[in-house]
């Protein structure tokens, strides 16, 4: 009964537009005070502080800052020029360039909206000028940007790893194969559309142009290779890798490309602060909710209720997928992770699902959630840049959402796909 009241209260507060971070804190506080009296207030204040000191989450502001710094320079334009020189000669090449660059670049700053705005502002007008329909251009941009959240460095994975007490580095490694698989599926889909609608090729393949574009983009290309190589190779931790990413992004923007002025730097820093604190406030108040839920044993009771229905791993995963897909339609990614992870983790452990495997499933569900209205900020941003209405873009997007769903199903039911690289590297 108490649990039902907490959940109903939380959704009521969210529906009247109380910020989700505060809504979580309010229901937790009311529940704790109802159970233990006003003494719980002091415990809540202490937990608000402790919840914000989760060490692995230090990677979040640092990756956000690195991404914001990169977003202020011409890195995206250089990457686009390189990928265009590489695959632009294929029919429908510009849509494939969109997928390729998005996978490399998107979600890098922690703000999906800022990243899609950065890439879409260049690619969508270019696609429209080349005769692509605005709704198709917006759909490709939006869905490929969402797929990118399973490719490291991924902020949802850092958040999940910290909340589920799971290795962030292993989550990063687990995301590689599903990310590439989804990316190649999207490239194939673009080619199919290109043949069907006779979409144009860009300039013919020219080794000289490819080499020049490569030289222009070399820093942008090697930055993730060095940072992720350092993290995967055990040279630095995920947090330290994020710190190095800041130094590298600052060096590339300010020294190599000479594009970083004080106004842009200040704007990038301010944006980094906002993105970080929005996520971290959710984390901090969810620690208070987590404390309360543990006291009333809600996660354990939920796990038991589901286990009474079925203890089949794949059936449980199907139920969780359905829940996450619905939640993803109504909640932003960070909020969905923060609400769902503490509640379902006991179930995940009891059924014997690998937490790394579940982390990738969760992240893929959130990627699909970014594409499904009413809450679909990535989709809305793409629509806004393309000046196309959301429903016509959604119609064009159905096939791309299909690719995301296909990737989700394959990853859910063939755990070897996300876990094979993890097992190979870490045994």
């Amino acid at each position, binding site marked *: 009964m108490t649990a039902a009241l907490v959940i109903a209260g939380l959704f009521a507060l969210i*529906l009247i537009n109380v910020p989700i971070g505060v809504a979580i804190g309010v229901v937790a506080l009311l529940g704790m005070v109802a159970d233990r009296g006003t003494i719980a*207030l002091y415990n809540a204040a202490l937990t608000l502080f402790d919840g*914000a000191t989760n060490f692995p989450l*230090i990677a979040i*502001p640092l990756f956000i800052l690195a991404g914001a710094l990169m977003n202020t320079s011409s890195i995206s334009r250089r990457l686009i020029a390189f990928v265009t020189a590489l695959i632009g000669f294929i029919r429908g090449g510009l849509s494939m360039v969109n997928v390729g660059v998005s996978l490399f670049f998107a979600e890098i700053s922690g703000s999906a909206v800022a990243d899609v705005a950065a890439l879409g*502002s260049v690619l969508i007008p270019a696609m429209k000028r080349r005769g692509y329909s605005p709704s198709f251009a917006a759909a490709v941009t939006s869905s490929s940007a969402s797929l990118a959240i399973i490719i490291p460095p991924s902020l949802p994975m850092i958040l999940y790893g910290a909340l589920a007490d799971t290795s962030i580095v292993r989550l990063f490694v687990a995301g590689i194969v599903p990310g590439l698989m989804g990316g190649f599926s999207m490239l194939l889909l673009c080619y199919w559309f290109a043949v069907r609608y006779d979409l144009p090729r860009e300039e013919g393949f020219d080794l000289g142009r490819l080499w020049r574009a490569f030289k222009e983009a070399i820093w942008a290309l090697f930055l993730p290779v060095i940072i992720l190589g350092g993290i995967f190779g055990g040279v630095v931790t995920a947090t330290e890798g994020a710190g190095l990413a800041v130094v590298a992004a600052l060096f590339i923007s300010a020294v190599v490309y000479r594009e970083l002025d004080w106004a842009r730097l200040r704007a990038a820093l*301010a944006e980094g602060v906002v993105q970080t604190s*929005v996520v971290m*406030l959710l984390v901090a108040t969810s620690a208070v909710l987590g404390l309360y839920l543990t006291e009333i044993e809600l996660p354990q009771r939920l796990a038991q209720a589901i286990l009474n229905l079925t203890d089949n791993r794949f059936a449980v995963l199907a139920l969780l997928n359905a829940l996450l897909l619905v939640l993803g339609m109504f909640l932003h990614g960070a909020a969905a992770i923060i609400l769902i992870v503490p509640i379902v983790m006991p179930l995940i452990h009891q059924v014997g699902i690998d937490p790394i495997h579940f982390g990738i499933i969760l992240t893929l569900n959130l990627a699909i959630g970014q594409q499904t209205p009413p809450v679909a900020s990535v989709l809305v941003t793409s629509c806004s840049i393309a000046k196309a209405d959301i429903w016509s873009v959604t119609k064009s997007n159905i096939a791309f959402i299909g690719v995301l769903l296909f990737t989700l199903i394959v990853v859910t039911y063939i755990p070897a796909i996300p876990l094979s690289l993890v097992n190979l590297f870490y045994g």
Partner: protein
Amino acid sequence: MTALLRRLLERLLEAISIALLLGLAVVVVLAVVMRYSGSSPVWYDEVASVQLAWLTYFGAAYAALKRAHLGFPGVVLKCGPRLRPVFFVLGESIVIGFLVVMAWAGWVVLGVMAGESLVSVPWLGLQVTQSVIPVGCALFVLAQLLSAPDAWRRMRAGVDPEGAAIDEAIRHARETPAGRRPEDGA
């Protein structure tokens, strides 16, 4: 007067939050350098964690001033012009009420922590590190109050805050070297 106060608070919170973010980056990079030079700093984990908490709460007040916290405005926007103000006032009251209670509880807790300090940095008292809860919550309340008039006007006009944020992100992207379109000129 409200606009001036708001601008001052924005500058103050921006300066503090950016300093905290840069400080965090410096500490992490310094720790890597020290680790590879053979003298891992013992204070690293504890100090960086406290910096993160400070960044969280000063940044949260800054984000509140910009009304950037994640919400779900869809239902309220769909309500009629009579119901919308009711939900607005109710929502604002709940936010402020929660933060006032947490600021008070955080202040009381500080009294219990007298004489205690960080394990790795004994000269830094817990009263100082934990003061971010009452201070941060109070600043959040102030930010919420100072940004309320603008938020009220937008709510009355039925402006979707998410749509406004998206427009801002697109405008910002078009101002960067990557986002400038040929027709925009150099």
